[in-house]
């Protein structure tokens, strides 16, 4: 009976979040213990790499750095131009974000949800609803912040949806997780919409939770189904959801988005539940 009551309370309300936070902090050593063997293997691997491999890696990285720097020069100029143009239009732009690098703990959480645990918590300033990225794209958002760790809901979870737009033409949609592997479902795309396989989807920033302009997924399949009043569009996340080891936690410095830009746009329910 107790368990039933607890289940219902935890599912419907959030009274238990504080209790859960405290108890999770107490149980943190268990997570660290489970992570320890994997961490040990990684340390050993680092120690045992040979010089040739390190040299090659170094060369590779410096080459990559050069390329990125070259692109960044262009980016600076473009950003300045973008700010100038926006000033002309009279709208504000959120400039700059603060990020924190966190590591994913090698812990298997309940298999029915797509979630991972990272090693930074409220002690480091993490908050519930915080966007999480990896080097390539958006990964998910924090749904539970404990003192020393937090749980991130991935964008592929069936309870997760985020507002996106097609990078090519600005077509807006909502990318909902499907809960099966590496797949997102784009909801309510009209039959005549201009969307193709290979289109890049970026965050539109409309839910005011994810900063705009980050890549999310690439369209894998766009098909007309006779039984579906909308187009069936499936996309594959560009973030390496199952392989990344390090993730970025993002604080948006100026999260306000000018409302006048979106006059008439429907308010979108987004995010977790």
């Amino acid at each position, binding site marked *: 009976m107790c368990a039933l009551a607890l289940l219902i309370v935890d599912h419907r309300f959030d009274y238990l979040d504080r209790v859960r936070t405290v108890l999770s902090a107490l149980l943190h050593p268990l997570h660290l213990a489970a992570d320890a063997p994997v961490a040990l293997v990684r340390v050993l691997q680092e120690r045992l790499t040979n010089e040739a491999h390190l040299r090659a890696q170094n060369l590779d990285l410096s080459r990559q750095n050069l390329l990125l720097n070259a692109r960044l020069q262009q980016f600076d100029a473009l950003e300045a131009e973008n700010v100038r143009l926006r000033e002309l239009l009279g709208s504000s732009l959120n400039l700059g974000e603060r990020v924190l690098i966190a590591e994913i703990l090698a812990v298997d959480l*309940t298999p029915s949800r797509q979630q991972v645990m990272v090693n930074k918590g409220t002690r480091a300033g993490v908050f519930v609803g915080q966007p999480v990225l990896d080097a390539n794209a958006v990964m998910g958002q924090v749904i539970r912040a404990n003192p020393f760790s937090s749980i991130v809901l991935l964008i592929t979870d069936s309870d997760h949806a985020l507002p996106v737009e097609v990078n090519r033409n600005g077509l807006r949609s909502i990318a909902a997780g499907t809960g099966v592997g590496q797949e997102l479902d784009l909801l309510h795309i009209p039959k005549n919409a201009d969307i193709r396989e290979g289109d890049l989807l970026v965050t539109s920033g409309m839910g005011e939770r994810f900063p705009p302009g980050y890549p999310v997924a690439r369209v894998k399949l766009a098909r007309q189904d006779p039984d579906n009043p909308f187009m069936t569009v499936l996309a594959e996340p560009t973030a390496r959801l199952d392989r990344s080891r390090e993730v970025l936690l993002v604080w948006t410095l100026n999260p306000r988005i000018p409302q006048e830009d979106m006059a008439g746009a429907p308010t979108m329910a987004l995010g977790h539940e």
Partner: protein
Amino acid sequence: MRRPWRSVMNDRVQRGAWLIPVSLVLALLLMILPMPDSTAPFRPQWLALVTLYWCLMTPTRFGVFSAFAAGLTLDLISGSLLGQHALGLSVIAYATVELHQRARLFPLSQQTLFIWALLLVERLIHLWVLGATGQPLPSLIYWAPTLIGILLWPWLRAVLNDLSHRVGLL
């Protein structure tokens, strides 16, 4: 020299009792230890197995409430809904405590079947919770861990029997 009765009683209650929490913590660790994606769905129900063992062997020390606490801990560390595992574990702990006198005397094969039934019940309750809270329902492979569980049961029983005799728990 006879020792006073009370101290003998204390000895009986406390000797070797640390083995229970230690085995539970180990089982919890095994539940969250990372496994490759291909084998993760086959992860045996370690915590349920250990809980069943203690309910069967020492029902006076380990009963429904301990099982409930163990399940709650698993819910906490695995990020599932609070009570999701606790419910199933308390139900099978109750059944085992009720039937322990008979089940303890079963021959190994029959006892293994008994354990299998309980493991299936645990999974069934878990599945019901998943369905009731609108989480995605797993495929048929969901039931595979019970089979692995009954393969493990004779070994687990042997190891825990040996350990508890060594520390004087049983």
